[in-house]
């Protein structure tokens, strides 16, 4: 069993694609990784090194071929689809490079979505929570805008608010600033750090930006499907 303060643990996790075919390929090799509650971890590495696969496995969007994954103490390999969906909804929030807000909904409604999907019917508590989150991220003024009627930075901040809606233990952010100009990228990063400090939410942040990686608590480097811990060369 994982330590109480450990929010995420990977034991000898491997991922193979096209198993049993001539083009079988192992993308991740025996990865061991442990992340403590409240850590702000940068995941770096060249393109094709397996960062996104690693993030998808941690995010319960994909399953490892071998090895064990513990999310908040739950061993996930034996969980069924429904249980995985529930655990993902509760424990993990996603922020992607492209915001991927649902354009048919307003900013507020987008933030309400994870809560709504879980509870089934909208209520005032959800609305209030979504409003608080947007307010914390400085977006209260735009909460009734349709997702498409906002700037890239604003949309990404809405996406962060949405990731926070279920108050998950872990937020996985796949190059959240990759598509933003320097100023917006900086704002978005600072916002995430702020959430991390205030709520103790664990962040795993995939980034190509070494400057941003340096400002994280810890850097995990993925190279050729293996993990190496270390400091970023300045």
């Amino acid at each position: 069993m994982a330590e109480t303060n450990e929010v995420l643990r990977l034991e000898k996790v491997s991922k193979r694609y096209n198993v049993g075919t001539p083009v079988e390929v192992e993308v991740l090799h025996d990865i061991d990784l442990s992340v403590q509650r409240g850590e702000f971890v940068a995941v770096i590495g060249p393109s094709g090194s397996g960062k996104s696969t690693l993030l998808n496995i941690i995010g319960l969007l994909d399953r490892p071929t071998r090895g064990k994954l513990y999310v908040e103490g739950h061993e996930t390999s034996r969980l069924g689809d429904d249980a995985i969906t529930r655990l993902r909804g509760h424990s993990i929030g996603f922020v992607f490079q492209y915001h991927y807000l649902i354009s048919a909904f307003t900013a507020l409604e987008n933030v309400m979505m994870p809560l709504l999907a879980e509870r089934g019917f909208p209520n005032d508590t959800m609305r209030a929570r979504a409003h608080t989150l947007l307010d914390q991220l400085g977006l209260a003024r735009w909460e009734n805008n349709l997702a498409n009627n906002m700037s890239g930075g604003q949309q990404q901040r809405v996406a962060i608010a949405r990731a926070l809606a279920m108050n998950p233990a872990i937020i996985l952010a796949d190059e959240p600033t990759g598509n933003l100009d320097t100023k917006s990228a900086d704002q978005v990063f600072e916002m995430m750090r702020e959430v991390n400090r205030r709520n103790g939410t664990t962040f795993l942040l995939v980034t190509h930006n070494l400057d941003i990686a340096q400002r994280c608590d810890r850097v995990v480097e993925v190279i050729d499907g293996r993990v190496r811990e270390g400091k970023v060369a300045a």
Partner: protein
Amino acid sequence: MNKLVPFEWITALRFLKEGRMQTIFIVVAVAIGVAVIVFMSALLASLQANFLKRVLTSQPHIQLIPPDEVARVLRKPQEGEVAVAIVQRPVQRIRSIDQWQKVRSELTRWSEITNVSPSMSGSALGVRGAASRSIVVTGIDPNVYFNVVRIPDYLVAGQVRVLTDDILVGTELAKDLGVNVGEKIIVSSATGASRVLTVSGIFDLGNKSANQRSTFVALRTAQALFGLVGGVTSIDLTVTDPYEAETIAQRVQAVTGVEADSWIKTNAQFFTAVSAQQTSNTLIRVFVGLSVAFGIASVLVVSVIQRSKDIGILRAMGTSKEQILRVLLIQGGLLGFLGSLFGAVIGGGGLFFWHGYMRQADGSELFPLVLEPSLFAVAVLLAAVTGVAAAAVPALRAARLDPVVAIRG
């Protein structure tokens, strides 16, 4: 967001609202399909109901008559004898159905037969003063016969009283003989019997020759006139389902041994036309329904492809496969429902307009319009169900979308 509306409905409605043009186009397509179905069904139902009513209220569904008399050669020619070269065709006398009371009580027990009406008819001469006309006298038991042939519906003067000395005559005959209600005519049969009868009512069957020749008297009066006391020449039946008349007739014939003719047989051409119409109507409905279904399915397939990222995000946020499935099914059902609602209005309205616009030469309506509310309800319901069914394939596809693939695009 309304608090009473669940997540799946909110999402389905928003998706439809956002893809406005797509939604409008497919709703219009469904509406046109449903309008065609409603228009055609209501039109044909009205036409058929009208025809059927005319045909089936002026004749029995099944008529039992005694078998034709046939001449039998007394013995077969022996070896070396010449066979009879000419067999004279026998005359068909007015004859009673053998043991008709037994046949009647047997048929009364059949649940699919609603009325059993024995009657007696034959030719006679109607005379008043110097005028005489040949007529067909039908002796009836008014209590049951009027359930088979609705003379009261066609009455234009007097009343439908048929006592021993009463006679109901057609408008043309009344004119030819110069009689009014309450006046008397002499009816003489070929057997030489004659009675003086009082005209109790005058009817109009909508057909000149029928109005000239048809008359109705009490069964006993006819029996006395034709010298067949206690006999009847036919038993008229009505059945619960007129379209089953022929099979019932065949069974009646098999059980009773009396010749049974259904209206389907005696009006073969009419019936063929009616069933051909029904078949083509059904075919049109099926094919229009199919094209509506494929229209909805194709729009939703495209929508699933367009929204695969949204669906992936929803899945990543904890939405279950079943929820995604329901969102798509609701969209399909809503498209079918909305389209059919408009379609029912367009179809019904179109029919009213057409019915009001098309007139007979004298300005009267072509036929009475039969608009069953159930037709609209069924059309709308079926279209909604079709929409849900059509959405099944795209919905499964959406539910099976791998969020990783969907998000990465």
